[in-house]
């Protein structure tokens, strides 16, 4: 099924059509900022041409979304399973509290990417950003994997300030030679000469395949791996009264 969105189609009508459609392959053409596309969706593939609005794929539960264009804020909020692939850029708070599935963004993303992302049993959420992203990457991260590749140059740091503030689980991989500024002290940084194995290698190979990138160039570069300091960080703050 193909839906032509345009400026007139209200998000409620568009989303109802996506929800109610019997087709499992849905294309949305000329998308112009309609919000909440694919909220809670499972069992379908939605291809979006244009610019979807905020909260794309919120609570996504297994559906696959591909965006040929830029996505906006709060994409993949509390996403449980499925995938979102964006050929352009993503906005702020990508993958807020995401618990499973994958988000691949070819371009850049905004602030607070992967905030409060968490893993649970077989669910391990993944976000890969091809370009740069803003401050507070992985804030309160409790699980899962975030990678920022900095493709397209390192004149500026590939992530903003306060990366990993409040992080208490999961891993962040930054493809860079320079440690990002103002790292909080509960985050541990380890330099890697390149990625040669493990889960992150599989993820990055899939990413390269998705966007037609050279694996060697992407994986062979230096990375910083950030993890939370394993000491339990907060419980000592309190005194029973």
């Amino acid at each position, binding site marked *: 099924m193909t839906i032509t969105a345009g400026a007139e189609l209200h998000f*409620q009508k568009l989303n109802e059509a996506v929800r109610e459609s019997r087709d499992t392959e849905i294309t949305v053409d000329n998308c112009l900022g309609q*919000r909440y596309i694919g*909220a809670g969706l499972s069992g379908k593939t939605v291809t979006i041409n244009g610019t979807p609005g905020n909260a794309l794929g919120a609570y996504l539960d297994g559906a696959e979304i591909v965006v040929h264009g830029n996505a906006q804020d709060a994409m993949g*909020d509390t996403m449980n399973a499925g995938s979102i692939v964006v050929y352009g850029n993503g906005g702020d708070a990508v993958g807020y509290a995401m618990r499973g599935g994958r988000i691949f963004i070819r371009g850049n993303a905004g602030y607070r990417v992967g905030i409060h992302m968490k893993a649970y049993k077989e669910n391990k959420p993944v976000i890969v950003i091809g370009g740069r992203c803003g401050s507070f990457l992985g804030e309160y991260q*409790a699980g899962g994997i975030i990678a920022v590749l900095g493709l397209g140059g390192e004149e500026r740091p590939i992530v903003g300030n306060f990366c990993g503030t*409040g992080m208490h689980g999961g891993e962040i991989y930054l493809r860079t030679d320079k440690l990002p500024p103002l790292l909080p002290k509960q985050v541990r940084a380890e330099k890697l000469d390149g990625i040669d194995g493990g889960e992150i290698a599989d993820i990055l190979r899939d990413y390269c395949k998705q966007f037609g990138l050279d694996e060697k160039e992407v994986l062979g570069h230096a990375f910083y791996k950030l993890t939370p300091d394993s000491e339990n960080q907060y419980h000592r703050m309190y005194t029973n*009264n």
Partner: protein
Amino acid sequence: MDMFIYPEYEVVRNPDLCIGCRVCERQCANEVHHYDFDLKKMVADSTKCVNCHRCVCLCPTHALKIVKSQDTYKTNANWENQTINEVYRQAATGGVLLSSMGNPKPFPIYWDKILLNASQVTNPPIDPLREPMETTVYLGRQKCEVVRDGSGKLKNTLAPQLKLNMPIMFSAMSYGSISYNAHEALARAATELGTYYNTGEGGLHKDFYQYGPNTIVQVASGRFGVFKDYLDTGAAIEIKMGQGAKPGIGGHLPGKKISADVSATRMIPQGVDAISPAPHHDIYSIEDLRQLIYSLKESTAYKKPVIVKVAAVHNVAAIASGIARSGADIIAIDGFRGGTGAAPTRIRDNVGIPIELALASVDSRLREEGIRDNVSIVVGGSIRSSADVVKAIALGADACYIATAAVLAMGCHLCRTCNVGKCNWGIATQVPELVKRLNPDVAAERLVNLVTAWNHEIQEIMGGMGINSIEALRGNRLMLRGVGLNETELKILGIRHAGESL
């Protein structure tokens, strides 16, 4: 320097009655009691006692009582014992003081300064035992457009509603902060009563999905256990922006309380701290709130009302006005005496405002702006009796949330040490041996008893006023009079002083 702090309460054992059966020893998770084989008698260490009364209730010969300790520092109206002890505790540890349950400080309780009206001579009272008395309440957006189909018939454009048999619901307490058995009791009681309980922010245990039609599922900043099935299962979705006991503060469930079952329900790893950030980091404005509301409505196909819960703070009326325009169906306001499983003492005791004032100002503001019908108002923190419920409704609430009263009904003795996780009554704990002390059958029955009794009392009070429907009581502030309140308080509450006629 090890500063000894004399216990606030002492265990007193009547040696003539004690038979040395050691029930108290087995029942106390704090290890207060033990049998001394040299002395051949039971002894107690009062320094460990939290005054939960478990031993007092279970002693077969009633040989035990807990009394307030006579020990005191040199009397000082400014530096009271508790204030001094708090300084000692912080000087010893460097920690932020952590407390449980609602604000215990002697702030005014406006419910107790408001009196209800009754009919005399004209507009006679109604006997609820003989005449129908309607306490059913519908919560949700009441305003709707009149739309007709082609044949001129009215289309149903009413937003989804929650139907309550009485204007009382059980408010949010997460699985994690309270036990599995406590959650089961609340779920079953709500189902039997025809009202709702609230999951809190800890997700919904798979065993309790069967109670979905009487469950309000909560979405908080940590999004624990939030996924499609959870949202679909609840009768309504509540966005938690704040909590009366700790406005502006997030939640923090320590890793040691994340048991296998709690971990499965929250969908987080076992033993890892569960942190709810203070703000929703995607909500910095009413427009952002609207976005979360609509993402929830979209993912559940507009089938259920969305509640936005906020703490009663200074600007609550303006905040509520924004929420009423954001697409929310129900606003829940939590007063500063509301309970909690754990909150920083200073926040709990000093932040927020009384629910009575918050409710009155919100209801007035929404009426002035002509948007009162956009939303229903639910209030909590703290509603202690049917009289409080009646006064809240007359001040403008549609329904009340109760939680402290509900845990009391299940056996809580308000010892206010939930944060320690060793609740001897099996309520605020995840320790299996303690949890199994709470029999969900008995606890559910006691909850049903409590709410049923309150509902009878509400009918009795309404009948006395000559009102036979709770709808006619809502916002009916002429039924209220203040005693001992100053002009500002009366103005905010929108009521006259006792003795003033119309």
